[in-house]
């Protein structure tokens, strides 16, 4: 089960903040000039104004060669295709479930997207209102996003607890190729599913282990600016 959950993170780890050192980062405010020069290329969160590359949102500006991008560090979750999210069932319709993913759109889980056949008559026995699931976004449309439960590590979450971190810090929690989350899982022995929407589900052997895992994750999300976090995390586990 634990390995299965790991795999569901893999598609997402490269996006956003990663642990790699060596890159130059600085805090920029909207409208601030990041660099001047014709040969720079504005990436996500940046645009060109004449000579200059200017930040179009608040966050950390990063130079990747000639590409400049601004990574946001606060704010709501914007659903993207392929994201694994933790969602709560808010309503049942004839064709599937309406879910709250705590993001910019409403989302829908069609009955056909459950891993096994479910009769329309006993949908509520499989997922009722208030149930929490891990699901993957497979389409983002103007009117909302569609979810699926077909995939490793997806499905109803039973036991344990969920809590929220700032969604833009999720890539940090997962770390490069899942290094950070695997470290936390190894040290605490908990099952953890991290949703890209900032909701995290933890289930462990004991409450103490679960709380320790939560504290570890909160430690990571507070350190926005720090590089080489995985080593710091190991040191943190030695102390606690």
């Amino acid at each position, binding site marked *: 089960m634990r390995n299965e959950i790991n795999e569901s993170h893999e598609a997402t780890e490269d996006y956003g903040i990663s642990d790699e050192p060596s890159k130059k980062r600085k805090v920029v*405010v*909207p*409208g601030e000039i990041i660099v001047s020069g014709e040969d720079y290329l504005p990436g996500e969160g940046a645009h060109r104004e004449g000579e200059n590359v200017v930040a179009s949102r608040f966050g950390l500006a990063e130079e990747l060669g000639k590409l400049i991008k601004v990574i946001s560090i*606060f704010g709501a979750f914007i659903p993207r295709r392929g994201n694994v999210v933790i969602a709560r069932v808010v309503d049942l319709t004839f064709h599937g479930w309406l879910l709250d993913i705590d993001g*910019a*759109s409403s989302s829908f889980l069609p009955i056909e997207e459950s891993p096994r056949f479910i009769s329309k008559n006993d949908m509520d026995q499989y997922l009722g209102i208030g149930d929490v699931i891990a699901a993957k976004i497979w389409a983002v449309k*103007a*009117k909302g996003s569609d979810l699926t439960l077909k995939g490793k590590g997806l499905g109803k979450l039973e036991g344990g607890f969920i809590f929220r971190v700032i969604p833009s810090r999720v890539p940090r929690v997962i770390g490069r190729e899942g290094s950070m989350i695997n470290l936390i899982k190894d040290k605490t022995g908990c099952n953890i599913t991290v949703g890209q929407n900032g909701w995290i589900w933890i289930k462990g052997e004991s409450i103490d282990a679960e709380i320790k895992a939560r504290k570890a994750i909160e430690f990571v999300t507070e350190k*926005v600016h720090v590089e080489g976090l995985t080593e710091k995390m190991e040191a943190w586990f030695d102390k606690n």
Partner: protein
Amino acid sequence: MAIKRESGRGATEIRPMMAKVGVIPNADGSAIFAFGDTVAIAAVYGPRQLHPQHMQDPSTGILRCNYDLLSFSVSDRKKPGPSRRSQEISKVTEWALSPVVDLEGFPNTVIDVQIYILQADAGTRTAGINAASLALAHAGIPMRNLICSISVGKLDKDLVVDVDKSEEDFKGGEGPTDFPIAKIANTDEYTLLQLDGKIQPEVVKKILKIADKACEEVYEVQKKALKEVVQ
């Protein structure tokens, strides 16, 4: 300088400014901004699904502002709930902010900006706009630039920056004049110009020049507050 300001400030001296970002943990973005005794707090929620559905715009997200005085913010208790004044200020705040935010990436959604005045000592809409601009940036909303806002007043014939309550109620000479201005930082684009009182057309140019200088100071305070939140 014919008239001395009661507070002892110079004509172009802004009251001590205070700005802090990230003051409301449950909001996606939040900020507090103060000009002396005028304190405004702003929270941003979203982008999120817009209800009622008929207000949704499939081509872009929309910005929705709500400004209000809290009942204890003024000396005579303000009756809670929307009033003519607060609805008007909500609307002008929305207009002041919307030119810089780029919501085309979030169709059918809304970004809610809640602005509350904790303490009122004149210039509440300008403090509110400054706080809202910080809160929007804090929420990671794509923005062209920050918005800076300041009010310029006229005491008889003298122009003064950032009027307080006693100056807003100034009696004598040409009477009280209050001229709130909001502009896009580091540009010549103005997003809010209001006037309460009497003023000669040629003086307006002077006012804009004074406001430009003051807005630079406001911008520095805003920039510092945003950078401080990342440690």
